[in-house]
């Protein structure tokens, strides 16, 4: 199976606000799929449907179908689902605990043996390209790291529970350009083992890292296709306007 995520006729509401309208989308395994679009068009709503994060919001409801590797997420316990689908947020949000504890927390609540934790912490930090910077200070408070380091820590934390899919919601928008490019490189490394969906406001970033791109506008998916095609020969006028910076 090459499909990691498949949505059919996905609609979402915050109370009466219709935030997503009939989204049909397929995310392929081991690919990076970017979601672009002006502010408020429903990008975050979409990816937060995938790991049922929005179920925590009062008044939020969905209709339609979301399949993760062929299985309807309505039939999966949200807690188990979120173990399989990691998420990295716009603003780095480490726990106010030690670096070690930040990474070890996830595996520990999923019942991983104490003896294995050390090696999980090390391998996760290595995958997130942070190990060399923090290996001598694992017991320091994570709040003391720089913003870019904190974001990579959050990526390592997500990796530590062994997800198959990772959702990134504007992971670089709070970071300086150098930290941002580190995270871009990291994502390209990660796609060998993981399937990635990234929301971004940065066109160059979408063009650089992603394999496919979806353009959202006012809750609808206007265009979805190969990243090269979207950026070189968009089929829709509004897509072209958006990526050339004529609005949004």
């Amino acid at each position, binding site marked *: 199976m090459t499909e990691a995520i498949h949505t059919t006729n996905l609609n979402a509401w915050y109370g009466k606000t219709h935030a997503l309208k009939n989204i049909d989308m397929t995310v392929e395994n081991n690919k990076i799929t970017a979601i672009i679009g002006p502010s408020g068009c429903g990008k975050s709503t979409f990816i937060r449907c995938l*790991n049922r*994060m929005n179920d*925590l919001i*009062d008044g939020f409801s969905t209709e339609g179908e979301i399949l993760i590797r062929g299985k309807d997420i309505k039939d999966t316990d949200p*807690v*188990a*689902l*979120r*173990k399989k689908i*990691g*998420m990295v*947020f716009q*603003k780095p*949000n*480490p*726990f*106010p605990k030690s670096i070690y504890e930040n990474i070890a*927390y*996830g595996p520990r*609540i*999923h019942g991983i043996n104490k003896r294995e934790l050390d090696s999980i912490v090390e391998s996760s930090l290595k995958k997130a390209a942070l190990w060399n910077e923090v290996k001598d200070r694992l017991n320091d*408070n994570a*709040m003391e790291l720089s913003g870019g380091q904190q974001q990579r820590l*959050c990526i390592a*934390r*997500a990796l530590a*529970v062994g997800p198959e899919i990772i959702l990134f919601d504007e992971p670089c928008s709070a970071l300086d350009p150098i930290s941002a490019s580190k995270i871009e490189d990291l994502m390209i490394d990660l796609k060998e083992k993981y399937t990635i969906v990234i929301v971004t406001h940065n066109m160059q970033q979408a063009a650089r890292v992603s394999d496919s791109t979806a353009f959202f506008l006012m809750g609808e998916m206007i265009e979805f296709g190969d990243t090269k095609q979207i950026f070189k020969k968009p089929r829709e006028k509004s897509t072209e306007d958006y990526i050339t910076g004529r609005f949004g």
Partner: protein
Amino acid sequence: MRYIKGEAFKYLCMAATVIALMLLALLMWDAWDKGAGWLSLKFLNSFPSRFPEQAGIKSALWGSIWLMILTAIISIPLGVGAAIYLEEYARRTWLTRIIEINISNLAGVPSIVYGILGLALFVRGLMLGRSLLAGALTMALLILPIIIISSQEAIRAVPKSIREASYALGSTKWQTVRHHVLPAALPGILTGNILSLSRAMGEAAPLIMIGALTFIAFTPAGPFDPFTALPIQIFNWASRPKAEFQFLAAAGILVLLALLLAMNAAAIIIRNKYQRYIKW
């Protein structure tokens, strides 16, 4: 003109602050002036007496300490539990809104009303008599709304991003609350609890209402013993005609103030200590 109005308002506010502080200082000085000479270890360690020179505050001091501890044991788990439920579990419906409005209203109910309730419910209804337990239950009711509200505020101050981080790793609700929300909210919760308890410490009206005794020549040995408390003892001394008893009352006020200041200081220390570690 706008500028002048702004300046005038500033000085008005300053004047109000200064007047309030001066009144407070005056009260303290008055108590100190009258009572300091009567403060001694003997005063802390003697039971009340008809003879002012022999009278002390031991039974009231121990009564207050007992009352505080029992009140804390009853009200903190209930109050913090209710706050966790309202903030983390309950859905925002009209019902929870009505509950919350009523809790804030309860916080404004005069303490004597809680005394009447305590008398009917605990002293007579549960037949606890004029015991420490009846007093503590009444005080717990009195401060429960404040504990709930201050705990709710502390819990609400924990940023959403921390909860999201936890849920995104596949934590359950309980794990998120237990491992992240509560530890982060704990300093605020503790501060609120201590301040509420210090409010209970200074209350006399509800205790008088449920009939706590004024003349008790022993320290309580358990929650079912009769008791007296500092504010009641002070009230009793202050209402006697003999001048020496006025001095005893002032000395009692100093003891009570010292206890309250200590509790408030503890609250401030806790808050500052943790604020250094947690910055969002």
